[in-house]
């Protein structure tokens, strides 16, 4: 019965991790946090004024790690005061989201005003429209991470032998890394450069020449998040969900020692899958014409 309960918990953790992954990546897209932000930052310097949100003060993993740790720490304190679980998870995520909102507003204003030299205006409507949406995404992400850490530390048997804030830190940084390494490509290489032909990388000479117009009016980051929610976000979520699920599942089902062998088999499986998709892509796309 214990085993079954644990398996259900691990499956639930995978599911929550998928949700966290999807919304983390979309939050980074709507607030334009990560690697492709270099292009949003560069655009006014090459003459492309835009109405995209522009916020980046640190790498995505560090930002996510910080806010997740704040949520985890508040949850830890409230748990010691014996508050109800759901209330604790909600309050902690909410307070951490407030920190994210303050960071977003100050960061956007700072970034845009630093570009006054290139005549980039600071649009208050961009600020007012984007902040609630990025905050909503951040709230779901932080709620999911805190819930995930709560399950790992308090419900799972054997539990992760770490405290709640540190587990939240680990989850936050890990999630940020994955959102940054996977979802960003869909935003950077595809959505920002939709004015370029599909099916090629972005040449260095085109850097900063991003799409600033949408079918109706100026493009904003809400258009971006709608686009990325169709592919980039879900794939990031799937990746994070699979990592969390498989890490715990192999230990639970096969034990520690046999779990090592199972883990290596999984690695090999993904390696083979990678070769297959690489080969198929080459056959389907063909060579580039110079």
């Amino acid at each position, binding site marked *: 019965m214990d085993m079954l309960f644990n398996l259900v918990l691990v499956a639930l953790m995978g599911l929550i991790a998928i949700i966290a992954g999807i919304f983390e990546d979309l939050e980074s897209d709507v607030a334009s946090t990560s*690697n*492709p932000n270099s*292009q949003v930052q560069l655009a006014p310097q090459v003459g492309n004024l835009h109405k995209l949100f522009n916020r980046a003060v640190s*790498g995505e*993993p560090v930002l996510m790690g910080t806010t997740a740790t704040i949520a985890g720490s508040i949850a830890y304190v409230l748990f010691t005061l014996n508050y109800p679980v759901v209330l604790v998870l909600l309050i902690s995520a909410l307070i951490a989201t407030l920190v994210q909102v303050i960071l977003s507003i100050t960061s956007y204003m700072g970034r845009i005003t630093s570009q006054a030299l290139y005549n980039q205006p600071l649009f208050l409507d961009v600020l007012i429209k984007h902040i609630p949406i990025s905050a909503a995404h951040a709230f779901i992400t932080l709620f999911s991470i805190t819930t995930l850490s709560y399950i790992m530390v308090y419900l799972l048997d*054997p539990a*992760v*032998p*770490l*405290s709640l804030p*540190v587990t939240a830190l*680990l989850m936050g*940084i*890990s999630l*940020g*890394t*994955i959102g*940054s*390494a*996977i979802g*960003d*490509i*869909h935003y*950077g*290489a*595809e959505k920002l450069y939709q004015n370029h032909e*599909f099916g*090629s*990388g*972005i*040449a*260095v*000479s085109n850097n900063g020449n991003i799409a600033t117009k949408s079918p109706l009016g100026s493009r904003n980051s809400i258009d971006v998040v709608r686009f990325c929610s169709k*592919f980039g976000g879900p*794939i*990031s979520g799937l990746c994070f969900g*699979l*990592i969390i699920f*498989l*890490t*715990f599942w192999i*230990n639970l089902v096969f034990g*520690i020692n046999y779990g*090592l062998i199972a*883990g*290596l088999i*999984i690695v090999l499986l993904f*390696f083979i*899958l*990678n070769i297959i*998709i*690489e*080969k*198929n*892509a*080459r056959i389907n*796309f063909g*060579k*580039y014409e*110079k």
Partner: protein
Amino acid sequence: MWELLISLIIGSTLIGIGVHFIPVGGAPAALSTSAGVPTGAPMITIGMGITGILSAALAIGQPNYIIALSGAVGSMIMMSITMFFSNVIHIYGVGVPLASSNFEKDPLTGFEQDAFVSPGTTGHGIPTISYVSGLIGSLLGGVGGSLAFASIYSTFSTYLNYSTVINGTLATIFSLMLFFIVAVMASYNIGGTIQGFYDEKFKQKIISGTISCFIISVVLSLVYVFIIWGLIYG
């Protein structure tokens, strides 16, 4: 304490060497302008190391070598899945084949590279040989991180009368810091992008990288041993 010092030196040197193996493209890779994992070297190393430390923490109570192997497998799983899905986005989201102009032919699959690199870029995605290199990097990084974790944890559990959770938490924070410092140091040595051990740049950078990582590891480990000594006897 000698055992701890030696484990920390070996662990952090392994992390430093591991960073060099990971194919990193940085911000340009997120635009399909260069091949590799589309984030900074320290970021992907820390993310990978963390999954390793989490796996290592799950194996607490086992012999040290099992904890180290557990961490390595955790890191490898994280890295393999991340690189796979990164390639999925490149192929199905951006519509580019996986290729890098840093080498002519992939020695494992025999795939020609240059003709599949879009004009004006130096590649996109993670080709098979870079994927293998990433796995080796995660193996080294995972072993290094969890070796440090295991040695710090066993020192704490031997000398301090704290609970498993406190010892585990302290050991996690200490070993996580190793990743932050050593990975940033190694990425300074790499200086931008690298496509794994088959890349020419790797051969130029690895020796100086190993030496500098070893030196920083010795300094760092000494500081760690002083802090831990103070925690126990202070």
